[in-house]
């Protein structure tokens, strides 16, 4: 029972991070029809810039996180203007977009190594302080991550549902040609999408860095497969699905290590579980849990 609670807690924490990261990818896909393979490295960037501003410049942690989110947004917008917009104009195909996104991922990752070094880092926060809950150990830092990510998830869910620009985003992803002729400023929708993606990418990176304890410039890349599995599980292009897919995957991955389940798997194999989930979904339910019509990636 204690093990179960422990794994469930870990799964919720990890799942909330997957959810936030998956939401960005799903939203970008739904609006731009672009699978952003660079999203993982934007997570890493958020963690490293937060590390830099707290250690080298001694900004308070929260301030450093906010700056990191702003930087994530700025870089996303720069890429939109110098890259994605131009590729859309020439109607670049799926393969071209895939290659460019992979290239962006590579450049961001290497730039992080160049700017900040490739040693592993650790936030200067209290990683030790913990509570006990039915025998399970609940580290304070992780609890804070879970609370903050839940707030972020609720806020974005309400925003997409209720805000006028949130509705415009859904309208555009539902029927781009009608959106373009019904008073929706498509460029505004695209910019809003990158703002959300940039903000949430940096946030997920800080959360993941906190939960992992230490991280290198490969953190986001290591996580990308799991995030993509969450995206596909929750139906690609469906923002709410991505959040739920993240939680489901986080919990499944943690519980897969549970002793009570045929001994469980070694925890280093957790990414394999994500891969298995991804393959199973693609084979048997490619439209994801919530998909009504099959959308091919």
């Amino acid at each position: 029972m204690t093990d179960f609670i422990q794994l469930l807690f870990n799964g919720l924490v990890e799942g909330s991070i997957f959810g936030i990261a998956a939401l960005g990818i799903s939203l970008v896909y739904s609006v731009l029809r672009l699978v952003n393979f660079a999203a993982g490295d934007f997570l890493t960037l958020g963690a490293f810039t937060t590390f830099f501003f707290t250690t080298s410049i001694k900004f308070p942690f929260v301030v450093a996180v906010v700056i990191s989110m702003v930087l994530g947004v700025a870089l996303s917008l720069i890429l939109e203007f110098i890259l994605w917009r131009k590729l859309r104009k020439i109607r670049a195909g799926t393969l071209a977009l895939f290659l460019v996104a992979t290239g962006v991922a590579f450049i961001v990752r290497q730039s992080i190594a160049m700017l900040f070094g490739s040693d592993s880092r650790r936030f200067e926060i209290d990683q030790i302080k913990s509570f006990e809950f039915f025998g399970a150990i609940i580290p304070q830092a992780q609890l804070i991550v879970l609370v903050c990510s839940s707030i972020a998830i609720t806020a974005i869910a309400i925003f997409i549902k209720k805000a006028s620009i949130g509705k415009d985003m859904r309208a555009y992803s539902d029927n781009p040609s009608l959106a373009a002729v019904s008073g929706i400023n498509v460029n505004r929708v695209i910019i809003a999408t990158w703002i959300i993606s940039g903000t949430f990418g940096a946030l997920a990176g800080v959360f993941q860095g906190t939960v992992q304890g230490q991280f290198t410039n490969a953190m986001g890349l290591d996580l990308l497969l799991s995030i993509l599995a969450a995206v596909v599980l929750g139906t690609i292009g469906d923002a709410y699905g991505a959040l739920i897919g993240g939680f489901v995957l986080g919990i499944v991955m943690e519980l897969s290590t549970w002793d009570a389940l045929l001994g469980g798997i070694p925890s280093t194999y957790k990414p394999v579980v994500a891969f298995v989930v991804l393959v199973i979904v693609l084979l048997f339910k490619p439209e994801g849990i919530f998909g009504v019509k099959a959308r091919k990636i």
Partner: protein
Amino acid sequence: MTKPLLTISGLEGGYGDIKILNGVNIEVPAKSIVTIVGPNGAGKSTIMKAIYGIANVTAGSVTIHKDGVDHDVLATKPYNLSKIGIGYVPQIENIFSAMTIDENLDVGFLPESGKPLGELKESMYARYPDLVSRKKDRAGQLSGGQRQMLALARALMSAPDVLLLDEPSAGLAPALVDQLFDELVRINESGVTILMVEQNARRALEISTYGYVLDMGRNRHEGAGKSLASDPEIVGIYFGKR
């Protein structure tokens, strides 16, 4: 003579290098219903697509004249056309099918119209009571007739001066076609000018103030709606099938 609300003059254009429109002239007086008919492929839809920047324009002009001011329609960004009083219901995929009926109306709303959102929505629901009980349903679940009503309601949410309708009766069952044309007359009586393209030519021309026959991307005939609808020559050549 008063200036027409919408004037299309010498419009030429098409898709890429393919020229579809070879000089189209259409005048839409304020408060009128004007219908464009013509054979398949004549370029009827292309006129509306040219206004919305979906087809390219190589020559000609489109002007909307209201409150004593001329606005250059072709120089206006498509998403700003609702701000100068133009609404558009495309021929196909004219609703947001994954969104609810209520959200479709929200998306159509234009704050600049000066009318409150709630009031406009109320008036749409009063007009289309079928939609009231289905506010929270996805629009994709509606029947063909209800979809068309929602498409009209969405466009009316921006309180347009002129509505461009591309084949509003396409795909509707015969009984619904009558309802739709009655509805268009009601919309027009509420002060909205209508420019439509219709396959159901005779029926459309009967309710129209004026009609144009388009062929090969140019004006071929024109005249008062009723006279065009009963002109034996035109009926024979262009809509003998109906």
